[in-house]
């Protein structure tokens, strides 16, 4: 089981769009996939038409009084399940603070799902907090969408440095440019130069496209309602790169056409 976390300290950079689309593409390729919507804003849950409610809230999940398996909901797509968001997730930092070894808590919670899923995507809220730290310790690969600005790149460096200080397991960082505005020279310059210079950057970049924003209207991954769009092709290319760099074995299940 591989755990991918879609994470950035900043908000509005395309984390949820990344998690939703890649989770869908992984499931379509035949992997058994779980997406955990950790953001109390519940955007991923909304996009899959799943009500953002977990009985007992985040506290019950973290403290183990409710099993994670019981809270999981199937999406409308084969091989793809979702652990919905809940508004109480806004207090996950406080709940984790009361737990033993809080930064390792998330990984421990996910371990029993090893037999059920090949891949888990974590859609994280924008912050740097105890929850983020727990996510960083749980993940095998950190997918970091970045808007191509100098400040964004500086944020990535800070994150990389933070991770390098971890004891034991450290996630691999895979950054990629997101929401590229082709009218902006700065975006194009940075997006062209950096992936060639840094091994932690994916070659694929996701453009800023209105069809991606329309996901919230269609309430579905972009590949579902606009399969031939540039956005769908970009996410497919990103998934191919993530799959290769994440060294995923071939799926056991059948690909879904």
């Amino acid at each position, binding site marked *: 089981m591989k755990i991918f976390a879609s994470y950035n300290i900043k908000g509005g950079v395309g984390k949820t769009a990344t998690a939703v689309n890649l989770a869908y593409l992984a499931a379509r390729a035949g992997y058994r996939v779980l997406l955990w919507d950790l953001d109390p804003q519940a955007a991923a849950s909304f996009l*899959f*038409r*799943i*009500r953002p409610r977990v009985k007992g809230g985040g506290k019950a999940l973290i403290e183990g009084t409710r099993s994670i398996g019981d*809270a*999981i*909901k*199937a999406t*409308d797509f*084969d091989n793809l*399940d979702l652990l919905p968001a809940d508004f109480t997730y806004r207090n996950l930092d406080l709940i984790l603070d009361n737990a033993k070894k809080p930064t390792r808590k998330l990984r421990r919670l996910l371990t029993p799902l090893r037999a059920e899923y090949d891949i888990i995507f974590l859609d994280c809220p924008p912050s740097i907090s105890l929850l983020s730290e727990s996510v960083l310790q749980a993940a095998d690969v950190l997918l970091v969408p970045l808007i191509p600005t100098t400040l964004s790149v500086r944020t990535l460096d800070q994150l990389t440095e933070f991770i390098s200080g971890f004891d034991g397991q450290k996630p691999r960082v895979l950054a990629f440019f997101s929401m590229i505005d082709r009218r902006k020279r700065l975006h194009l310059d940075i997006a062209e130069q950096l992936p060639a210079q840094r091994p932690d950057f994916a070659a694929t970049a996701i453009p800023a496209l209105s069809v991606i924003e329309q996901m919230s209207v269609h*309430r579905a991954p972009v590949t579902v309602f606009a399969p031939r769009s540039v956005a769908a092709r970009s996410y497919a290319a990103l998934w191919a790169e993530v799959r290769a760099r994440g060294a995923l074995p071939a799926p056991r299940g*059948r690909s879904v*056409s």
Partner: protein
Amino acid sequence: MQNAFREFALDGAGSPAPDGALPAPGSAFRWAAASRPRTLRRVWLDTFDWRLYRAGLTLEQVSCRGRTDLTLTGRDGTVIAGEHVGPGLPGESAAPRKSAGLPKWPGKLDSLPPGPLRERLGPVVGVRALAPVAKAVSVIRERPALNSDDKTVARVTVDRMSVSYPARATPPARLAVTALRGYQPQAVRLADVLAAAPGVADTTQSALEAALASAGRRPGDYSGKINVELTPAMPAAVALATVLTALLDTLEANVQGTVHDLDIEFLHDLRIAVRRTRSALKLVGSVLPAGLASKYRPEFKWLGDLTTPTRDYDVYLFDFPGMAESLVAAKPAELQPFHDYLARKRAAAQRQLARGLRSARFSRLTVGWREALAATVPGRRRPTAAAIAAAKITRAHQRVLAQGAAITAISPPDSLHDLRKRCKELRYLLEIFGSLYDPGEQWQAVRELKGLQDCLGEFQDTQVQYEKIRAYAAEMMAERMAPATTLLAMGEIAAGLIVRQRRARSEFGGRFSDFASPLSQSRIRALTERAGK
């Protein structure tokens, strides 16, 4: 996707239109558009004696959209193991493809690639071949049921099946409700709404059971056991004719599998039917119309003799891996020429056997025997089944007790062989008249007999195998196909057989004491006494 938790059969009124229209789903849900229909070519596989079905398993080969999978499920539909076995069947789609990669049925397990499916099937299927028990084409349409957020909470599939084997038939359309994970309560509500619609009835039949039922068969309808219902007051001639007809059914059911050499159990079951028939004719044949038993006994002896050579080689080849592993001084590979010799001899014996089973003599035997049994009417003296059973079983029991008690440590091997024959006679009588008795009491009665038979069987089988391996060795020498290392290995096996035989002989006393104990004797007496009341 989870398993269907509730299934329905649809009669005329509830039968869905070809476009997949279904009863209204109630106010809380609405139907999404039906999916494009999928056509599945389905082949259900099992052994001839339904080992998978009896173990609560279903093995189905499904070809759909250019791909063929084999899936093993439990009785509740849970997938236990699956294997992608090849492309789709020819003609299933316009795309050209080869069907050469598909496993051929009937076939043995080793025609499947190694993997979890083969591993799971192995202990259940054993040496038996898998063969189609039903074939059908299913046209499947799926209708998602949506909640007020347009989220799918359940999927309803409509399965319109056309059965082509074992007979052409069209079972009622089937409707299955599958809950999506986390939406069980909503799916339950939806299923309740559907259940209340006209023409919709709950069904517990699996798709295989429905396919077979529509074609006039039921799973598990073959067993090597004598499956008849005798009554104590039935005239003995009629009872015996009933049993012998059932044995003829078993014999004939196994002919094709034996002729085509599908697996070694066809011949085994056929031989048991012949042996039981011969014993019945010998022990109770006098109740049949005059001359009938004496006319057919030589014919069934011919049939028994016809089957013996192939079975002897089967036993050797079946035990071969165990024999090879048991070698201490010799190496298993040194036995290979012996294996090749046995396989060659078996192939020749099998050809001879197949010729015999296709012969006019065999055909005359089975046709004439069936007609004679159908024409059997009780004679003037009309003894009842219970009376004959009691008399014959008591006599056979007494003979076993007397012969067994006379055997001492210095008795010749033939005395044990004779005792084995007497035990078989008693066992066959208990089986032939088994339906007169309480199954629990009958099992108790034969338990000690079985223990004794196992011991005597081991004693005689090892003797026969010892003599045979010496004869094989001589023959291989004469044919110049026996390297010295192979002969030495065979010698080691022969020595092992003698060790086993001595062990069996040393166990005889204890086994016979168990059988001859007052408790065991009273069980057999009680069995025959109670059957007449």
